[in-house]
């Protein structure tokens, strides 16, 4: 086996390294900066150059080495390279080759170009490790243009009625993606401190985002009537929101595809935006790898691997500690 599945994470015996391990290991290759993939405590880290700033921002001063997309590197007896996963800026699929056998661990990915992350690139391989967060045919995402029109329409309607729009978004990835969809001509864009901290990191690496104003204790929120506020989901409905007066709340997540979940969130509006692949995305990505063996990690593993089996793949389930896109534990470190 090129890669093995252990209780610490995905392990490569030939190169003696782990990919996205959830327990401390001597050497970790990290697909991206979300908390369930990039954890503290490893002896050495390797990630893409564009993922590094966020990982440092979150994990502090760690022994982190970087690599560019497509760059080949030898680790022990393994040939390793990183390829864009389209999930968040800097996210990668990790390709591992040993004696001509190629495996790819994809971490989290999406196939739609969000205009911010390096777009997903299919990598030919023999075995492909895939997530299945949205691995059921009920999950298909609307076009970005439709989404942008929906969100901006909601914002304009609120602004006209004198309400502030407060949209719950995870601070890494989703927040910046939504920022790029917003029409700044509709009004000022305010950000929660947690969102703005990640914005700074992203801007620092040269990615353009519209102007934002961070909400601080001495900011007169009422002076920015009709604003759009981006905040982590945990801030929705909290005391922090009181400063805005009349608000309409929204929540952006792939789970908003389900009416029941939209209603449970008790936000006024739900927008279907995910940084994970939808059903069609998962299937087309897998097809494009040309792989015969598929390992299904977090998500609807049982259903998705059974489906892949009926499609002629040699598919199996792998238990991991990855969180997918969670809805219930809305802490700041949540993966999106």
């Amino acid at each position, binding site marked *: 086996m090129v890669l093995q599945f252990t209780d610490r994470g995905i392990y490569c015996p030939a190169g003696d390294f782990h990919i996205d391990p959830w327990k401390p290991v001597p050497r970790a290759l990290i697909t991206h900066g979300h908390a369930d993939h990039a954890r503290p405590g490893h002896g050495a880290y390797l990630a893409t150059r564009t993922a590094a700033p966020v990982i440092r921002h979150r994990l502090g001063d760690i022994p982190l080495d970087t690599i560019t997309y497509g760059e080949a590197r030898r680790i022990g007896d393994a040939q390793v390279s990183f390829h864009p996963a389209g999930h968040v800026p800097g996210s990668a699929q990790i390709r591992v080759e040993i004696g001509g056998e190629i495996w790819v661990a994809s971490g989290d990915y999406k196939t739609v170009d969000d205009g911010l992350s390096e777009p997903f690139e299919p990598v030919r391989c023999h075995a492909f490790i895939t997530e299945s967060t949205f691995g059921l045919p*009920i999950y298909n995402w609307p076009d970005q243009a439709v989404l942008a029109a929906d969100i901006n329409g909601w914002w304009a309607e609120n602004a006209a009625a004198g309400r502030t729009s407060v949209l719950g978004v995870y601070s890494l990835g989703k927040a910046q993606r939504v920022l790029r969809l917003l029409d700044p001509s509709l009004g000022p864009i305010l950000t929660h401190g947690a969102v703005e901290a990640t914005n700074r990191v992203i801007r620092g690496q040269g990615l353009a985002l519209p102007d934002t104003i961070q909400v601080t204790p001495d900011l007169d929120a009422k002076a920015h009537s009709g604003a759009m506020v981006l905040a982590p989901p945990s801030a929705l409905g909290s005391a922090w929101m009181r400063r805005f007066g009349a608000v309409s709340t929204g929540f952006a997540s792939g789970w908003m*595809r389900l009416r029941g*979940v939209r209603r449970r969130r008790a936000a006024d509006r739900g927008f279907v935006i995910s940084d994970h692949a939808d059903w069609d995305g998962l299937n087309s990505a897998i097809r494009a790898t040309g792989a015969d063996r598929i390992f299904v990690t977090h998500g609807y593993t049982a259903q998705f691997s059974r489906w892949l089996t009926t499609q002629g793949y040699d598919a199996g389930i792998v238990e991991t500690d990855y969180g997918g896109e969670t809805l219930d534990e809305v802490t700041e470190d949540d993966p999106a």
Partner: protein
Amino acid sequence: MNRFAALFTALDQTTKTSVKTAALAAYFRDAPDDDKLWTIALLSGRRPRRTVTTTKLREWAAEVAGIPLWLFEECYPVVGDLSETIALVLPPATRQSAHSLSHWITSLRALDKAEDAEKKAAILSAWDQLPPTERFVFNKLITGGWRMGVSQKLMTRALSQATGIDEPDLTHRLMGDWSPETTSFHTLVERPDPDASLSRPYPFYLAYQIDGAPEDLGPVTDWLAERKWDGIRGQFILREGQHFLWSRGEDLMTDRFPELAQLADFLPDGTVLDAEVLAFANEKPLSFARLQPRIGRKTVPKKLLAEAPVILMAYDLLEWEGTDIRARPLSERRALLEGLIAGLPGRVPLRLSEAVPASSWPDLTAARAASREIGAEGLMLKRLSAPYLAGRKKGDWWKWKVDPLTIDAVMIYAQAGSGRRATLYTDFTFAVWKGETLVPFAKAYSGLTDAEFREITNWVRKNTKERFGPVRSVAPEHVFEIAFEGIQASPRHKSGVALRFPRMLRWRRDKPAKEANTFEDLQQMLAQYG
């Protein structure tokens, strides 16, 4: 159907009653009459006759989506709603249409006698020309049972705002046995036909559970205390020699209880009673379980009639000598009711729900504590000076139910919820000890806070022993206090008992699993209360 789908979306996107009422009133102001009538029908639980089976809908949807049926079936519990599941798996529509709500309902009704192939062609064609929300609405029209989060009360208020007709008056007009197929908006709402009102019931008055100490209600002499009987609340109508029996859910139950027909010989015309249908023998109520087999069937076999004879336990008199007397005080209505029932022969299946005598609140507290022994659910408190109101109102009527029975049980299986709880483990199976083994005896899915459900969900994920489809067996570690309203012997259940309304009262974090209750404890409860 665009307008109706927009109404649905507006209602669905808010939890604020005022916003819902405004959206609905706006719709009632400018939708076409036929659409308005159907909307009222749908929101009051009247649905078009089902002309396509859900089995066929599932098959066709899976086929159009290009997925195997098992995968469709896996999606259904995640979504929690069949109509929505279908709408979500279908590929985008390729055409557009501008047909009205009533057009689609009419076209569905026309499929009644059609062959399967014709039905399939019609449904697939509809799916292919409806945008997502309208598709969902269309599926709901087929599968039925859909109130869009709007109570009858809210709908009536919106209609009242749009038409200028009084709310109580409208409530009465919309009750009873009407269907959009046999009436029009004009006849039903704007100019009701007096003949149609023969069977029309009055809106039921519903009580809230008392929330403070009963002493706060003032002098006990202001109140009538009655037993809260455990049967089916009903309204018995006798007008022009015809009788009707309505359930609280506005189901006409007349034919299910043929023994009540003889009441027409003993009561005067123009009588309407608020009462409880009770299984009853030897001057004692039988348990609700005895009544249950009679609820589901339209006609009653002789054997069942003998096994579970019913009577009407009368609470109140709403119409007397053809006159609506709901506005008169309860004390006067009760006096008239007592007069009607006094002196009837014992074989007549009608009893007066006797007042529970009391000279102080402690008297009633004691009477309530004895409820279970006589087969009642507790007490009802009704203010003697109050009129008979419509709907659930606070102030003059209170339920004062007995505390539920409880037992401490160990959680052994967990299953994800559906719909709005699809991402949480919320449906649990509980067991009690029989020696060293755990015997499952109840399922419950309510009673915990969202935070507790999240906590237990995380625990379930980490402590799963085995998976059986959507069900996970978990380590037997957590004890919950299970509350329930009643217990019955049931050969269909492994434990030999069936509980009524089981729910989780408390998470007993203080109790180790070993200290949960036992099978013997359960047997004892069955012997005492079964």
